[in-house]
C-alpha cells in the first residue's frame, strides 16, 4: 500500500476544475441550460453624472418588440437599496436624482437579450443637471466624504519632522484600475413556489446577494438561496458589484413569475461598475543624515465614487499599509474618503493596500535622492526590527518579521549590486536606451480589518461508500480555493483527493458567510472544513474504540485505511460499520480568527493575525525618445508560509504580479469632460497581454517559512500580497528615467507609467537636472 495519499496538503495538485475547463465542460452561469420560459433583462442607465430626474418616460420601452416587463424604482416592494454596509446610499434604481453616468434607472425584460438591449435605448429621460464632482481634484476642493475621515497617530510627527536634520514634501497621484474579470457580471434568478427565489450568480459574496435580494424584494433571508459554483475571475469586482444585477434579475423574476437572466455587455459592465480607487497622497517626511525616517505626515485622499460601498474598510486598510515594511517612529496619517460623481469604487485585490504602499515607496525614493544613496540602502535602514523598532502606527507589534532576510536572500540571488553596476555602465554607453533596476518589499496584513467578518463555516458529509461531500462559504474564482480546502479534508481523513467532492457554494448549505476576499479564504474556510472533518473523525474513532474495545489511541487514520488495534480496514469499510452502528457522518465546522481586535476611536489594536511578506527585483529598459519600455527581468521571493499547494501559490504570485504591472503601467482609465468613461473596452483599456510578460521571470517561494501563527497547516494567505510586488517595476522604470539626470533628481513617476508619462518624466528630469 502507498504510504501517502494522493492530493494531500503541500502537494502541487492541479486545479480541481482543470479537466472541465480544458474540455469546455465547465459550467459558468451563462453556460447553464436555460429554463424554458427564460426572460433576458437589460438595465437602462443614466447619461448624466449628476442630475435631477424630471421625467422617466418608459412607454416606448414597454411597447418595444419582445418586451414583457419594465421595472423601475416604483416596482420595488422592499427597500430600494443595495448598499453593502447599510449606508442607504446605493439604490437599485435611481429615483429622484442620478449620481453617475451608468447608474441604473430602470430595467426591461424581453424574450431575447437583443430585444432587451434595443428596448432600453427607447427611454425618454428628462434631466436637469446639478453640479457634478468629476475627479479627485474637484473632490478635494468640495470635500464631501462618503464615510467619515479617519486618522492614525503615533508619537508627535510634527515635532519630529521639524526637529529632523532633513525634511521634504511631495505629492503622488495614483490611477484606478478596471477589474476586467474575463467573465462579465451575470446572474440568473429562478422563482420557486410561494416567495422562494433561487439565484445563480457570479459573485464573491453569495450571502450579501442573498441579503440584498431579500431586502429589495421585502422577503426574509430564508426565502432566498444563492448558488455559485465558479466565477470567471473577480479580483474584488464581484464582491458588492454583483448585487445590482442579481437584484434586478430577482425583481423581474418576482414580478413576472418567470426565470430571468442578466448579463451586461462588456462595455456597459465597465461603465456601470466600480473600480480600484484612484488616490492622491500628500507626504511630508523628516529623516536623519543616514536616511532613517523620524516622522511622517500623510494625507491620503481617495476617489470613492458616489456611494460608501466598501470605501471605509478600503481606506482603513490603506492607512494600515502606509508603513509597508518600514518602522515609523512617529506618524500622523489621515484618510479622506471623498465623494465624486463616478461609479462607486470598490474592492480590488489589495483593497487600498497597494496605493498606500506606493506612497511608502515613493517616500523612500525621495529620501534616497535627497541623500544621494541607493534606494535599497535606505529601505534596509528603515526596515522593521524583530524585537525593537517593531510597533506599527496602529500600535500592533510585529512578531513575524522576515523582510530583512527575504531582501538579503533576494538581493543576493538576483545579484542586485552587480547588475546595478552593469546598468550604470550600460547607461553611460547608451545615448537613448536607458536601463533601471529596483528592489521593493511587501508586507501585507492578513485578516479582514472588520473583525466580525473573520469567521467561516463548512459542511462535510461522509456517505456510506466512503465518498466525501465538501461545502464551505468560500467561492471559487480561479484562485484554487476549492482545491486547497479539499486537500485539507483529504489530509484529515487520509483519503485520496478524488474521494472528496467539491460542491457549489450555496447559502442554504453554509449560511452567514463572509465575502471570498482579503486573501483569507483558505485560512478561514480551510480551518472550518478541517474542524468539520475532525468532528466526524472523532466520532469514527469513538465508535471504533468502543466496538473493538481499544483505547482511542489505538485507532489511526493511515492513507486510505484505518488501523484499529492490530487490524486495518479500508476507509469505506470503517465508515460503513459506523453507519450501521448509527453514527452521524455529517458535521458542520466553524472557525473564527483568534487574537485580532482594533479600536477605531483610538486607532489602536491588532487588526492583523499575521503578515505575508515578499520582495521583487525588476529591471527595465526605456526608450528616452518615445517613452516606450520593456521589462527585462524580474526576480521574486515570496513568503506563503508552508504552501498548501505550491503550484497554485506560484500561479497566484505570477498572476497577481502581472495584474499589478498592468495597473502601474498600461492600464489607464480615461474619463471625458462630461464625466463619462472613455476607456470602456479592451481596445482602449490595456490589460497585460502575453508579450508584455518580462523576458526573464524567476519566482521562488521562501523556504522553511512556516507561519508562526496557528494557521491551516502553517500556510499563509497569497491572493493579494503578490500584486504589490509590481511596485518594483514602477521603480525600475523610475530608476531608468532618473539616469537621464545623473540620478540627482527624483523622477516622481506617478502610475500608471504609460509611455507618455515616461516621456514627460524624462523631459522633466532632464531639464531639472540641467538647471541644477
Amino acid at each position: 500500500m502507498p504510504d501517502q495519499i494522493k492530493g494531500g496538503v503541500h502537494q502541487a495538485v492541479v486545479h480541481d476544475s482543470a479537466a472541465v475547463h480544458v474540455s469546455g465542460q465547465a459550467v459558468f452561469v451563462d453556460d447553464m441550460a436555460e429554463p424554458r420560459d427564460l426572460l433576458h433583462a437589460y438595465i437602462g442607465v443614466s447619461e448624466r453624472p449628476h442630475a435631477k430626474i424630471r421625467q422617466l418616460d418608459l412607454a416606448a420601452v414597454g411597447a418595444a418588440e419582445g418586451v414583457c416587463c419594465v421595472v423601475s424604482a416604483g416596482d420595488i416592494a422592499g427597500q430600494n437599496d443595495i448598499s453593502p454596509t447599510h449606508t442607504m446610499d446605493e439604490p437599485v434604481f435611481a429615483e429622484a436624482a442620478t449620481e453617475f453616468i451608468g447608474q441604473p434607472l430602470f430595467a426591461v425584460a424581453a424574450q431575447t437579450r437583443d430585444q432587451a438591449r434595443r428596448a432600453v435605448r427607447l427611454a425618454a429621460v428628462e434631466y436637469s443637471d446639478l453640479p457634478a464632482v468629476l475627479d479627485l481634484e474637484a473632490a478635494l476642493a468640495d470635500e464631501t466624504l462618503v464615510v467619515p475621515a479617519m486618522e492614525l497617530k503615533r508619537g508627535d510627527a510634527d515635532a519630529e519632522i521639524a526637529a529632523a536634520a532633513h525634511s521634504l514634501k511631495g505629492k503622488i497621484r495614483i490611477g484606478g484600475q478596471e477589474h476586467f474579470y474575463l467573465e462579465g457580471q451575470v446572474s440568473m434568478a429562478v422563482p420557486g413556489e410561494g416567495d422562494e427565489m433561487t439565484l445563480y450568480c457570479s459573485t464573491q459574496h453569495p450571502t450579501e446577494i442573498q441579503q440584498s435580494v431579500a431586502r429589495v424584494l421585502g422577503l426574509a433571508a430564508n426565502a432566498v438561496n444563492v448558488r455559485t459554483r465558479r466565477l470567471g475571475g473577480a479580483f474584488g469586482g464581484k464582491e458588492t458589484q454583483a448585487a445590482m444585477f442579481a437584484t434586478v434579475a430577482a425583481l423581474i423574476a418576482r414580478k413576472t413569475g418567470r426565470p430571468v437572466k442578466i448579463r451586461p455587455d462588456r462595455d456597459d459592465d465597465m461603465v456601470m461598475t466600480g473600480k480600484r480607487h484612484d488616490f492622491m497622497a500628500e507626504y511630508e517626511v523628516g529623516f536623519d543624515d543616514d536616511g532613517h525616517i523620524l516622522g511622517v505626515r500623510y494625507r491620503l485622499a481617495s476617489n470613492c465614487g458616489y456611494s460608501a460601498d466598501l470605501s471605509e474598510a478600503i481606506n482603513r486598510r490603506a492607512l494600515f499599509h502606509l508603513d509597508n515594511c518600514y518602522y515609523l517612529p512617529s506618524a500622523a496619517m489621515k484618510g479622506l474618503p471623498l465623494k465624486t460623481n463616478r461609479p462607486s469604487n470598490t474592492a480590488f485585490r489589495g483593497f487600498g493596500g497597494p496605493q498606500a504602499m506606493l506612497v511608502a515607496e515613493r517616500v523612500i525614493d525621495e529620501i534616497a535622492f535627497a541623500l544621494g544613496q541607493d534606494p535599497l540602502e535606505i529601505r534596509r535602514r528603515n526596515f522593521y526590527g524583530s524585537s525593537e523598532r517593531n510597533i506599527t502606527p496602529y500600535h500592533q507589534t510585529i512578531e513575524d518579521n522576515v523582510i530583512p532576510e527575504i531582501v538579503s536572500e533576494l538581493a543576493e540571488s538576483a545579484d542586485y549590486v552587480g547588475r546595478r553596476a552593469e546598468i550604470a555602465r550600460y547607461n553611460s554607453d547608451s545615448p537613448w536606451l536607458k536601463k533601471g533596476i529596483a528592489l521593493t518589499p511587501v508586507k501585507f496584513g492578513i485578516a479582514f480589518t472588520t473583525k466580525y467578518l473573520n469567521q467561516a463555516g463548512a459542511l462535510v458529509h461522509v456517505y456510506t461508500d466512503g465518498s466525501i461531500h465538501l461545502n464551505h462559504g468560500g467561492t471559487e474564482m480561479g484562485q484554487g480555493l476549492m482545491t486547497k480546502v479539499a486537500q485539507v479534508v483529504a489530509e484529515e481523513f487520509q483519503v485520496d483527493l478524488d474521494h472528496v467532492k467539491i460542491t457549489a457554494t450555496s447559502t442554504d448549505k453554509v449560511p452567514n458567510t463572509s465575502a471570498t476576499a482579503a486573501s483569507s479564504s483558505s485560512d478561514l474556510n480551510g480551518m472550518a472544513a478541517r474542524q468539520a472533518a475532525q468532528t466526524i473523525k472523532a466520532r469514527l474513532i469513538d465508535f471504533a474504540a468502543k466496538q473493538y474495545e481499544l483505547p482511542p489511541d489505538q485507532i489511526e487514520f493511515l492513507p486510505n485505511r484505518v488501523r484499529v488495534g492490530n487490524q486495518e480496514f479500508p476507509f469505506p469499510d470503517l465508515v460503513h460499520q459506523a453507519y450501521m452502528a448509527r453514527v452521524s457522518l455529517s458535521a458542520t465546522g466553524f472557525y473564527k480568527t483568534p487574537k485580532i481586535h482594533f479600536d477605531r476611536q483610538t486607532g489602536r489594536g491588532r487588526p492583523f493575525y499575521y503578515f505575508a511578506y515578499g520582495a521583487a527585483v525588476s529591471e527595465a529598459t526605456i526608450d528616452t525618445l518615445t517613452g516606450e519600455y520593456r521589462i527585462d527581468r524580474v526576480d521574486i521571493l515570496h513568503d506563503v508560509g508552508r504552501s498548501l499547494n505550491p503550484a497554485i501559490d506560484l500561479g497566484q504570485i505570477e498572476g497577481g504580479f502581472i495584474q499589478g504591472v498592468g495597473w502601474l503601467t498600461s492600464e489607464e482609465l480615461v474619463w471625458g469632460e462630461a464625466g463619462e468613461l472613455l476607456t470602456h473596452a479592451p481596445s482602449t483599456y490595456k490589460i497585460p497581454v502575453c508579450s508584455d510578460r518580462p523576458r526573464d521571470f524567476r519566482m521562488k517561494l521562501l523556504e522553511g517559512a512556516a507561519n508562526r501563527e496557528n494557521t491551516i497547516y502553517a500556510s499563509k494567505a497569497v491572493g493579494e500580497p503578490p500584486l504589490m510586488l509590481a511596485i518594483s517595476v514602477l521603480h525600475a522604470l523610475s530608476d531608468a528615467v532618473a539616469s537621464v539626470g545623473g540620478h540627482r533628481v527624483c523622477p516622481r513617476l506617478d502610475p500608471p507609467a504609460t509611455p507618455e508619462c515616461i516621456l514627460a518624466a524624462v523631459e522633466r528630469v532632464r531639464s531639472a537636472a540641467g538647471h541644477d
Partner: protein
Amino acid sequence: MAVQISLQINGRTVEAEVQPNLLLVDFLRQEQRLTGTHVGCDTAQCGACTIHLDGRAVKSCAILTVQADGARITTIEGLASGAELHPMQRAFHRHHGLQCGFCTPGMVMAGVSIAENHGTPDPAVIRAELEGNLCRCTGYHNIVKAIAAGAREMAGRS
C-alpha cells in the same frame, strides 16, 4: 428573414435556419448548446470565443453565422477524440495553464492553431501569436509552457 445554412460542427452536419444578424458565437452557444466557447468582451478582442473555421483560428463573436455556411467548424468540445483529450488539452491540464478557466477554451483553440502553423514554436513566437487572447488571472507563463508542450506532443504524434 431567416437564412438556410448547412455547415459541419465538430464532425457533424448541421442544417439550420438562422437570422442574418445572428453572431456565430450565439449560434454555437445558444442553438447548438456548445457553451465551452465563451464570450469575454463581445468585441473581437479577448479571444475567449476562439474556434476553428476551416482550420483557421477565428473569433466567433466577430463572424455572422451565415458567413459560416458551408464551413467546417471545430469548437473546444470537438477537440478530444471520445474520452481521450487532445494533446493541447492535456498540456493545459498538466502544466496548470489556467486559473478561473474562462479564457481556457479560447487559449487551447489558439494553441492548437499556433502548433499547426509553427510546428514546435519557441516561447517568443507563442507570445507574439497569442496577442489576441487575453487572460486576466495568470501571467501567461503556464499558458505559454502548455502550448509549447502541447505543440511538441502534437508534432510527435503526427
